[in-house]
């Protein structure tokens, strides 16, 4: 492995140079941000930030039962698997952050936010037609100097605060509802779901102590909660006050690999719910919808690397880098 590591890092620099040469549309940018002064300077290159959605070792698909998920090994069928990402950055081995510029002309994303959609059928469990909005990577460009070594990738889950409260019916995609954001709009909190990760346990969801309560779905929705508003301030252009930010920033080490070439970002649903019992829900919404005292939210939030109540944030466990030949 160490040989592979060494080889990869050597190859990486050359590969990057080759990339620059072969891209054909490389532009010589002003390179003001680069701290290293080199011959050649920075160039804008296209990159692809691919994602993979897994439930353990199984790739997530819509019309199949997936067993053994959660703390009680529940069999489920997926009902929704979408999430927003923004602020993607590449980080060099010296810690320098390089912002990635998302391509606004690509479907499912605009210059500020992208909506990843892993449902292979439209409506997921509800439909069999192919999902035209399936999206598992973010297309972007980045300004890189050839000698920079990219060590990590960083991104933030969710919709940026500046876009979260705009009217969905006239918002730019992928925030338009009805549109790509159908089912991702959180109207009653006047915002969006940052993650729409819903499963339908085959045996349903029950509530201990309340036999009349049942639900078909177990949801994991991150979003801004606790929002208050001040109408006068809103009219003067201020944003709503949402004390719970709930936008985890994920930083992943590439381990010498290159995104879009031999590395992808994996979201592992099995890891997310490993401490959650998908067949029961004690209180409030079925699953976790980011409500401040919902007991199911504790394990979800901790897995995402967010603090929960008095529990401090820990290292997130849901996202990782996997080797993938693309």
């Amino acid at each position: 492995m160490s040989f592979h590591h060494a080889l990869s890092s050597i190859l990486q620099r050359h590969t990057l140079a080759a990339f620059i040469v072969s891209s054909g549309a490389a532009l010589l940018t002003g390179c003001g941000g680069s701290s290293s002064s080199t011959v050649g300077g920075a160039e804008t290159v296209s990159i692809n930030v691919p994602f993979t959605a897994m439930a353990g070792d199984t790739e997530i698909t819509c019309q199949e039962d997936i067993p053994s998920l959660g703390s009680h090994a529940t069999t489920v069928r997926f009902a929704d698997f979408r999430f927003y990402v923004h602020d993607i950055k590449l980080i060099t081995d010296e810690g320098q952050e390089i912002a990635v510029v998302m391509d606004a002309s690509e479907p499912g994303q605009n210059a500020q936010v992208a909506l990843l959609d892993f449902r292979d059928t439209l409506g997921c469990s509800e439909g069999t037609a192919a999902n035209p909005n399936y999206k598992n990577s973010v297309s972007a460009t980045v300004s890189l100097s050839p000698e920079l070594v990219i060590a990590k990738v960083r991104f933030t889950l969710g919709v940026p605060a500046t876009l979260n409260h705009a009217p969905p019916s006239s918002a730019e995609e992928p925030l338009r509802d009805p549109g790509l954001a159908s089912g991702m709009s959180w109207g009653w909190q006047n915002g969006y779901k940052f993650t729409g990760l819903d499963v339908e346990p085959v045996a349903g969801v029950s509530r201990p102590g309340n036999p009349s309560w049942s639900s078909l779905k177990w949801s994991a929705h991150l979003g801004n909660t606790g929002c208050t508003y001040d109408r006068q301030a809103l009219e003067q252009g201020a944003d709503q006050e949402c004390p719970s930010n709930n936008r985890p920033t994920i930083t992943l080490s590439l381990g010498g690999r290159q995104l879009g070439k031999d590395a992808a970002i994996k979201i592992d649903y099995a890891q997310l719910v490993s401490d959650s019992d998908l067949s029961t829900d004690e209180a409030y919404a079925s699953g976790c919808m980011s409500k401040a005292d919902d007991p199911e939210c504790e394990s979800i939030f901790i897995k995402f690397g967010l603090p929960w109540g008095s529990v401090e944030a820990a290292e997130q466990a849901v996202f990782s880098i996997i080797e993938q030949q693309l």
Partner: protein
Amino acid sequence: MTATFLSSDYKLLAISLFFLPLLLGCPQQSSTTVDDQGASVSAFSWNLPANIPLPKEPADNPMSEEKFQLGRHLFYDPRLSMNGSISCSSCHHQDKAFSDGLSRPQGATGVQHPRNSQGLVNVAWMNTLTWGNPVLTSIEQQVTLPLFGDDPIEHGINESNFEQILMDLQADSHYAALFSAAFPEQEEPLFGEMAWDNIIKSLASFVRGLTSFGSAFDRGELSVAAQRGSRIFHSERLECFHCHGTYNFSNATIDRQTSFLEAQFHNTGLYNTDGSGAYPHPNTGRHEITGRAAHMGQFRAPSLRNIALTAPYNHDGSVATLRDVIANYAAGGRHTTSGTHAGDGRMNPYKDGFITSFSISAEETDDLVAFLESLTDHDFINNPRYADPWLMYSQGSTP
């Protein structure tokens, strides 16, 4: 000395001094200039009584008659739902001041809504929308919930069906003209990419244009019993006016003149399921949105206009009649002795400070109900302007 005094110099002085004050003519003209910054100007004919200020209109959706008419068509159109079975009017009937007479309605898939369908009376003057949500401050925001919400499903419009629903509307010949008239600045208001935004804006405009200020109370025609009831309503003993005051009988009222109004939500001691103030889920009121303990069970005080038509009452329709509502207030809350929601709401620690018990006789209750009934606006519920245009088409008349 005398000679000196009477000399002309002094005479002149004396005379001048005395007539000097009368020289104070031609002063600056006093004036008071008032600039209301267009607060009394609107493109829509509100037809309000003189003492009612105009409601706020959103800057990105100013009111117009054309938007109102388009919204009216959409309001009564069941094609705006997943299976063509639900229109806004399914849960908002004009003859009940746009409520539906049920404790809680059902949506397109039969799932019951957790809360009661409110009457649509003077919504344009409401500070916030729905029973207990402090962040919904415009009708445009609220309208997306019944249309696109999935928990519960009401109209059930989602990503699988919204394109077909729009095509169904596009196929109706009435809509092309209505959309063009309502959004003249757009090239393709019905077939372009702003179509859904236009639907939402025009539905909001229709709801905004539902105004009711023509009750017996407004005309000053109160019966003797209703006059007694009015005094009881405004008395310090009952304190109704604290939450149901202003010209709209709700303290959550704002208008063009209002610069600031805090969110108005109150816990009236209806439930206390755990002995510590809990309300049954999911109807915890403002707490459902903010998560703060002090907001448990807080709901918006609805307008009492046309209240006699919107039974059953309270956020979950669990109070059947006006007399029951008054009885709850007289007791200082509701004591539920049995069932899943048993608890003594009168002891709810989050209860609003104005909900203290009071004594009221049976005759006084009758008078108070008579007053509340005088707030019914028969012109509002019979006004053809607010009625179903599709029905009128089928009857051969023009709406």
